């Protein structure tokens, strides 16, 4: 047989495969219609689901073709399952503790996932796959390349595009039969009530403290169970707030921690799998709450330590009668909620990214990156001190910089003195003390360092405004940002 015959053969095989798939699709639709006929007048189910869908601006369902909506099926009153659902969720239905009843409840539930990041990725994927009735995703951010190591719902092709769009597309690709609602904005006190109200269950998959307080308060006001997860570095935490007597976030943490105690993934790092593990467990808790199967993590908290591979489940206090939000005498209203300044309350921003920038020094003690660059170009003798932690310095650094982390700067001043002396010796102008410039990642630690240095007898110390981040932005676009 010649090559042409082989090609023909492939074409026929491909055509056959396509037709068979089409037939299977038709069979499914026929069975579906038959089961509908058998069930007689099927009542429109899912009050929660319908509520959730009503009045939401965009993206109710969308498998691309109108078919997505048509194939979405509620269980009919008789308890019979549409054939396509039986097949899709058969492994759930085979679970004696879960079964048809569990799947029915799931299909009638609506869940809002706040945050489409490291935690929200597995939450949304699993909740879409398992067949919740309505899945809402809220996030105002765009996908960035440095998200992809942990935010597994997003793909390279979506970098620079909306996280919610990316997440919703990924969920639709897995299960076109559920309703997906895209909320393309950051959850704020002004819009939270309106959005959260439409759902049965809320999943906190956010990355910052003020938003955590806000979501908890909102869930108390609207009486919604809150599946809360958090991850940082190599540790994760998980609990279910405001459900079956469990506390709200404020019962546990009536006062916010000091700002310095609030580590963020963008500063401290996070191993990608860690939020993945916690997110999977959040999806599980959401399913348990939605179906009333098993014992949700109420009044208990799960602590996950990835490094030692240990999971500890501890008993925590119940809801506090004196809690200012969920307590018996609480006078907190929806109007107050909408006006409450959560960023002021926690003294931290509602974003993992924006850094509070310090201003500790007079202008005379600071230079901009461009000024510093001009000075290098002129060949002026100087010493560049990099005060970032050693593991940051290993990622990238400016040439000929000396690394003494801020945390040990005071005890290592003699080393700095020696280095300054060496710089002076190699420079032509011998008597003058060479200039000392201090840099860090974003320009906060360098200011603290300059303050310390000026107190300790280094009057020439100057801060490079905005740190390496500004260097990459204003001077050298090839300098690796992290």
């Amino acid at each position, binding site marked *: 047989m010649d090559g042409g015959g082989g090609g023909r053969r492939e074409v026929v095989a491909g055509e056959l495969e396509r037709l068979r798939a089409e037939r299977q699709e038709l069979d499914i639709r026929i069975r579906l219609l038959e089961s509908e006929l058998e069930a007689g007048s099927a009542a429109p189910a899912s009050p929660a689901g319908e509520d959730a869908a009503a009045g939401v601006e965009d993206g109710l369902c969308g498998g691309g073709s109108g078919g997505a909506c048509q194939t979405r099926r509620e269980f009919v009153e008789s308890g019979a399952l549409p054939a396509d659902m039986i097949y899709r969720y058969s492994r759930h239905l085979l679970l004696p503790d879960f079964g048809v009843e569990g799947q029915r409840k799931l299909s009638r539930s609506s869940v809002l996932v706040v945050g489409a990041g490291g935690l929200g990725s597995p939450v949304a994927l699993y909740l879409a796959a398992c067949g919740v009735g309505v899945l809402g995703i809220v996030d105002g951010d765009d996908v960035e390349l440095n998200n992809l190591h942990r935010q597994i719902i997003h793909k390279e092709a979506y970098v620079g595009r909306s996280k919610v769009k990316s997440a919703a597309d990924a969920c639709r690709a897995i299960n076109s039969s559920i309703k997906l609602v895209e909320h393309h904005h950051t959850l704020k006190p002004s819009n939270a009530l309106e959005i959260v109200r439409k759902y049965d269950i809320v999943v906190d998959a956010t990355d910052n403290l003020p938003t955590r307080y806000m979501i908890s308060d909102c869930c108390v006001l609207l009486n919604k169970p809150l599946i809360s997860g958090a991850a940082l*570095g190599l540790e994760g935490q998980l609990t279910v707030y405001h459900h079956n007597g469990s506390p709200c976030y404020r019962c546990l943490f009536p006062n916010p921690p*000091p700002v310095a105690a609030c580590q963020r993934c963008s500063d401290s790092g996070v191993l990608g799998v860690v939020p993945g593990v916690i997110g999977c467990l959040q999806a599980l808790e959401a399913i348990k709450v939605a179906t009333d199967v098993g014992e949700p993590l109420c009044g208990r908290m799960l602590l996950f330590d990835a490094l030692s591979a240990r999971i500890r489940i*501890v008993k925590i206090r119940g809801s506090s009668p004196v809690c200012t939000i969920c307590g018996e005498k609480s006078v907190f209203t929806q109007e107050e909620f909408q006006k409450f300044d959560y960023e002021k309350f926690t003294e931290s921003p509602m974003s*993992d990214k924006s850094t509070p920038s310090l201003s500790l020094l007079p202008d005379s003690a600071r230079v901009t990156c461009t000024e510093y660059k001009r000075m290098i170009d002129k060949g002026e003798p100087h010493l560049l001190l990099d005060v970032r932690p050693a593991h940051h310095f290993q990622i990238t650094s400016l040439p000929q910089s000396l690394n003494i982390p801020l945390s040990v700067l005071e005890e290592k001043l003699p080393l700095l003195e020696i280095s300054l002396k060496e710089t002076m010796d190699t420079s032509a102008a011998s008597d003058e003390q060479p200039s000392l410039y201090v840099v860090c990642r974003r320009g906060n630690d360098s200011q603290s360092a300059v303050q310390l240095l000026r107190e300790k007898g280094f009057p020439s110390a100057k801060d490079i405004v905005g740190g390496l981040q500004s260097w990459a932005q204003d001077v050298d676009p090839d300098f690796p940002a992290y």
Partner: protein
Amino acid sequence: MHLTLEFGGGLELLLEKSTKVHKVDCQPTMDGSEGGKATMKGLLSWVKSNLIKERPEMFIKGDSVRPGVLVLINDCDWELCGGLDAELEDKDVVVFISTLHGG
């Protein structure tokens, strides 16, 4: 008495070499004597003077832990055991964990 003290959620950074688990032998009574009652209050002041190496304000505020720190005695919220007045027994495990916000 022998106690196992664990620090997590970033609190370990305040300790020498960022060690999370510390098996200690101490008398966490208010005056350090053997006879007195061993309480959480006594333990906090012992931890502050013997284990915390830097930024004590990241651990203690007033005579208690700072906001945002959960304290667990044998895997139970110390609020359910008496808080600062909770009595400790030999071989108890006390966990100090800072709440996480990242995701």
